[in-house]
């Protein structure tokens, strides 16, 4: 007699460093958005004391978190290619190059069939994360241009010359500022979609949701068919 048993098997998907970097990005993007909106159109009333440099301080934190975001992004990119268990991620590139995988994933989003993928990301997911990575670097580039116009010394002074050429490609500082502002909207729109898709696919396809980013383990159901031994009961 055959017995089918379904067990949740753990898959280790994200290393400690990857998980920390993920939440670091979440934190920096949140802080950068709030401070960014303040810098675009200051919404706080002055304290009435001239020694409280409200704007300058918000701007300072904006730059500090911007640098943290860049560091986190560079480290994450390194881990993607050279991390200890990056195979699960790099395997997803095969899915991106396969039209069938794209159709499978898009169909699964519209409740047709199951999500089958070679790596830990589906093609739609992979391309979205890739676009967000590009967006991070575009934001950092435009942010550096704005930074170098405020901090003329040291690192700011070093990048000022080359970046003034990049400024002219964008069509002046005002355009750089506008593009920087538009990139922020990319993150604001990405976050709710990202959170929803994580929760939804966990419910739909019965695997781990937000927990993955804390524990590093995802759980997948696997069927097991056992030949029941006679008289074992």
């Amino acid at each position, binding site marked *: 007699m055959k017995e*089918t048993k379904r067990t949740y098997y753990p898959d280790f998907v994200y290393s400690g460093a990857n998980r920390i970097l993920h939440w670091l990005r979440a934190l920096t993007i949140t802080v950068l958005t709030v401070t960014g909106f303040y810098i675009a159109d200051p919404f706080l009333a002055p304290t009435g004391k001239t020694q409280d440099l409200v704007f300058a301080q918000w701007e300072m934190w904006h730059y500090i978190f911007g640098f943290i975001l860049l560091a986190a992004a560079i480290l994450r990119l390194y881990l993607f290619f050279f991390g200890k268990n990056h195979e699960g991620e790099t395997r997803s590139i095969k899915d991106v190059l396969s039209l069938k995988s794209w159709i499978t994933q898009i169909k699964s989003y519209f409740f047709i069939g199951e999500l089958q993928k070679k790596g830990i990301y589906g093609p739609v997911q992979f391309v979205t994360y890739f676009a967000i990575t590009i967006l991070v670097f575009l934001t950092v580039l435009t942010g550096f241009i704005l930074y170098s*116009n405020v901090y003329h010394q040291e690192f700011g002074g070093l990048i000022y010359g080359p970046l003034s050429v990049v400024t002219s490609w964008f069509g002046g500082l005002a355009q750089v500022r506008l593009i920087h502002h538009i990139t922020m909207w990319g993150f604001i729109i990405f976050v709710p979609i990202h959170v*929803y898709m994580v929760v939804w696919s966990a419910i739909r396809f*019965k695997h781990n949701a937000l927990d993955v980013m804390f524990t590093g383990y995802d759980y997948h159901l696997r069927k097991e068919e056992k030949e029941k031994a006679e008289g074992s009961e």
Partner: protein
Amino acid sequence: MNSYDALFKQARLQLDSLSKLSSLKEDPLEVMLEKNHLDRRDFIKWAASITAMLALPGHFTPLVADAVKLADRLPLVWLHLAECTGCSESLIRTDSPTIDSLIFDYVSLEYHETLMAASGWQAEENLENAIKNYAGRYILLIEGGVPTAMNGQYLTIGAQARTGVDLLHHAAASAAAIFSIGTCASFGGIQAAAPNPTGAKGVDKVISKPVINVPGCPPNAKNIVGTLVYFILFGTLPAIDVYSRPKWAYGNRIHDNCERRGHFDAGEFVETFGDGGAKEGWCLYKQGCKGPYTFNNCSVERFNQHTNWPIGAGHGCMGCSEPNFWDTMGPLEKPIDSHLLMGLNATADKIGTTLLTATAIGIGAHAVASLFAKSNDRNNEEEQS
């Protein structure tokens, strides 16, 4: 050896060679100053201020004074293309003849449509004579953008109806140096703003010779004279930024040296024109000041004999010395996040909010659909069977 010694020597040699040329004016500068009740002390003070403005050390002051005295050796041709003459006005409209405007009288201005006595055929002859007689020697100053659409037919000048493009090419061919005076000549200006029906362009986009841009609407008289003095002094073009603007004038942002900068850093902003903050002289950033995006020296040099400047008068900078400022800086009295995106007639924030709302609706619809969707997961199928 001081690092400025080489520069000093270069200027000395240049001035010596200039002094060998014959003057194009009857009176030397000293006589002219005296006629206008300006003494030598005023002149040296002015020379010292120009020296400082050009970021040269103090011992260059006598050289600058000499250079200005020799300014009558260099003929100037001033072309008016698609423009409003505001740049010329900036230079010549003063409460009393200042040294800046006197220098302008003193240089040998061979052709300037607004200022010259000649008109009609005679004026055209003057231009032709200047270009022929001083070929390779004259400085060409251009005011106004160059309409290029329809073979330049949007701008024709004089009895022969020569197009602006044609005149520019003709005059630029044998010029010693070319200066674009004002935003129109530098970047096209208001007539180059979208949709730019006349195909107006900056001078450096039309001719293929090095051009120094002195943008501004109008540029400061000091920046025009300074660029001229620099050329007379060294015989070369000044250090320029990526937009060919002299670094000594356009190296810093308006914001960097603004008198209201302290209020900016403290987060003290004028909320509406005429409110308490405005009376206190707070920062005009929320009233659309474009100082943080604009490179110019207005905050230091000011206008009208250093009397005042836009931000001093309570209105934000509108970024007039930046390329395409009509298209990139608007609305002029609102922060830059109110900028309307090209062709969409909405701000980035408005479009972002709309997309975010659409995202939320999409997520909601998908979530609701999930509740009713038939489960066809492998694992679920087995549960149901």
